[in-house]
């Protein structure tokens, strides 16, 4: 388990992280979400042992990453840029990773290269931006590390490669005994795969949410009435949008009373809609977090 305990970090006299606590369980996907500048990348860089925390501690399987850096055999950090790999050829990087990670699986690595139609030779710098991003993920998962930290893995990529990458992460997690921590400001991407969400707001953990639990806590419904949305219903629910007489509401699953009120008001349209993570954030955080 990765445990982040009371981590704070100041850079250039600015407090980037303030007393951050959370943990990452085995076999889960944890999404770290927050606006640009919320401290997501700094947090991942501290977990990876790149930055020293100003205070607090990071442990992986109860070992401190700074005092026992060997424990990072189980932690691979994939930054948002692949610059560090650009001078290597595929053969060189395989040899290099084999030397670093005792559990590097060369067979799996080449299988994945074949699956994604990569050449098995040549320099990484000649790959396109999307290919480089996918390649660094392949490399990271081939290490068989227990924890993979991904910093904005789909940032700046086109839709097709983005889909490929997200699918690859989801498959790798389901097939292998690995936990993934993904930092992103794209809620729509995370909701499809994350089990656990850590919301960072101004350097603090604003909330920690379990996806399954969360989705069962709310209902999203689209309603329309003869007149305007009755005030007593408006007061008891979260209005996500209003277009003419059609309103989209978010209500708690347990709130039978509000559901009864809606039925009693005899809506001309009543439809249950699929719930998205964004809806929940709007409800819980008043839309403060969302960055498109």
């Amino acid at each position, binding site marked *: 388990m990765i445990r982040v305990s009371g981590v704070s970090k100041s*850079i*250039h006299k600015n407090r980037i992280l303030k007393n951050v606590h959370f943990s990452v369980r085995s076999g889960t996907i944890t999404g770290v979400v927050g606006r640009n500048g919320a401290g997501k990348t700094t947090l991942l*860089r501290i977990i*990876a*042992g*790149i*930055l*020293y925390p100003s205070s607090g501690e990071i442990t992986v399987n109860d070992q401190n990453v700074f005092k026992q*850096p*060997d*424990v*990072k*055999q189980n*932690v*691979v*950090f994939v*930054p948002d*840029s*692949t*610059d*560090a*790999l650009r*001078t*290597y050829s595929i053969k*060189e990087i395989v*040899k*290099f990773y084999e*030397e*670093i*990670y005792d559990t590097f699986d060369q067979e799996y690595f080449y299988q994945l290269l074949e699956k994604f139609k990569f050449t098995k030779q040549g320099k990484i710098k000649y790959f396109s931006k999307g290919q480089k991003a996918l390649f660094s993920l392949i490399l990271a998962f081939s290490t068989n590390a227990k924890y993979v930290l991904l910093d904005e893995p789909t940032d700046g990529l086109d839709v097709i490669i983005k889909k490929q990458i997200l699918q690859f992460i989801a498959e790798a997690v389901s097939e292998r005994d690995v936990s993934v921590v993904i930092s992103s400001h794209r809620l729509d991407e995370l909701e499809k795969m994350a089990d656990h969400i850590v919301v960072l707001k101004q350097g603090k953990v604003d909330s920690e949410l379990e996806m399954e639990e969360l989705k069962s806590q709310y209902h999203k419904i689209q309603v329309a009435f003869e007149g305007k949305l009755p005030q007593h219903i408006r007061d008891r629910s979260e209005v996500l949008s209003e277009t003419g007489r059609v309103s989209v509401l978010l209500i708690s699953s347990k709130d039978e009373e509000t559901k009864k009120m809606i039925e009693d008001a005899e809506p001309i349209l009543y439809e249950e809609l699929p719930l998205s993570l964004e809806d929940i954030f709007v409800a819980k955080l008043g839309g403060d977090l969302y960055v498109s």
Partner: protein
Amino acid sequence: MFPKALWMKEWKHSKVVSFGLFVVFMLGYPISAGLNIDSWRMMKEQRGGFWEEQAYYAINEQFSPGFYGYIAVGVMILLVGFLIGLEKNTKRHDFMMALPFSRTQIFATKYAFGLIVMSLSYSLSFTLGYLVIYQSEFRDLIDLVNITDAFFIPLAGYFVIYSFLMLIGAIAGEIKSQILLSIIFLFFLQGFLVLLSMFSEIHGLNLQIFELDFIFEDLFWFSYLNIMTDSNIVIPLLFGIIFTALAWFCYQRSPSEHSGEFLMFRQLHPLFAVGIPICSALLGGLIVISVIPYNSGEGLKIMVYWIGFLVAMFFSWKVTKRLLRM
């Protein structure tokens, strides 16, 4: 302590500069020995008497690093830049720090890599140079050289310079500032005292700075690259060890969030913010005064000196502010 993966990485990124250092040493010893033998032969044939007088100096100069020694130090600055500074300019620094190695392992590998490249290249070239002369008709001249000193004193000089460069590398935030600071600080102590002495001379003071032999000879690391001076090998060895320990300490403690900036340690900013303008001002005053006639009056000299001093201080203060904001 020295993981193979780290050796592979250092080799990949520094092999070209390492080879460059080897070439410089080869030029300085076997190749220059081969070329000098021709000149010596000609001199001996054409000006026998003169050659008799010059033979001692010629053979000692051959084993003294001299000009090639300075070039080698230049390449060593680049080598240390490639080992430490270049990483900080790129995402390679993050990549390195995220690997399952301690900072001590990372530093020790970098340090050992450069030290081995430097000492092996030097030793091999020196030996080949020795053999070239030993195989020639000038073999007897080797008796005029203290070969042990000729080998070990420059080696100790390179060791202290290399360790010092590693210390600067650990402090600097990126390769450009590392190279700049390396060049400045190799001459800083003596240079600063010269500037101070000029300042005192212009103002009618007599600080006797040039009499500080310990600073101008023992602590001037380039003096160990001349085997014809009387040098104490203990000093460069001792300072080399001190610089190595400091470099390790600074590398260990350096906050990665400042990589890419001018300095890794913000605690040093006040020192640089004051030090750079003062040194520049002293240099500015010296440069400006050198353009007025030697026999000008003392009052004029002082006035011109202070104009140069203040102008240089103003501009260097502006530049320093920008540098430290980097």
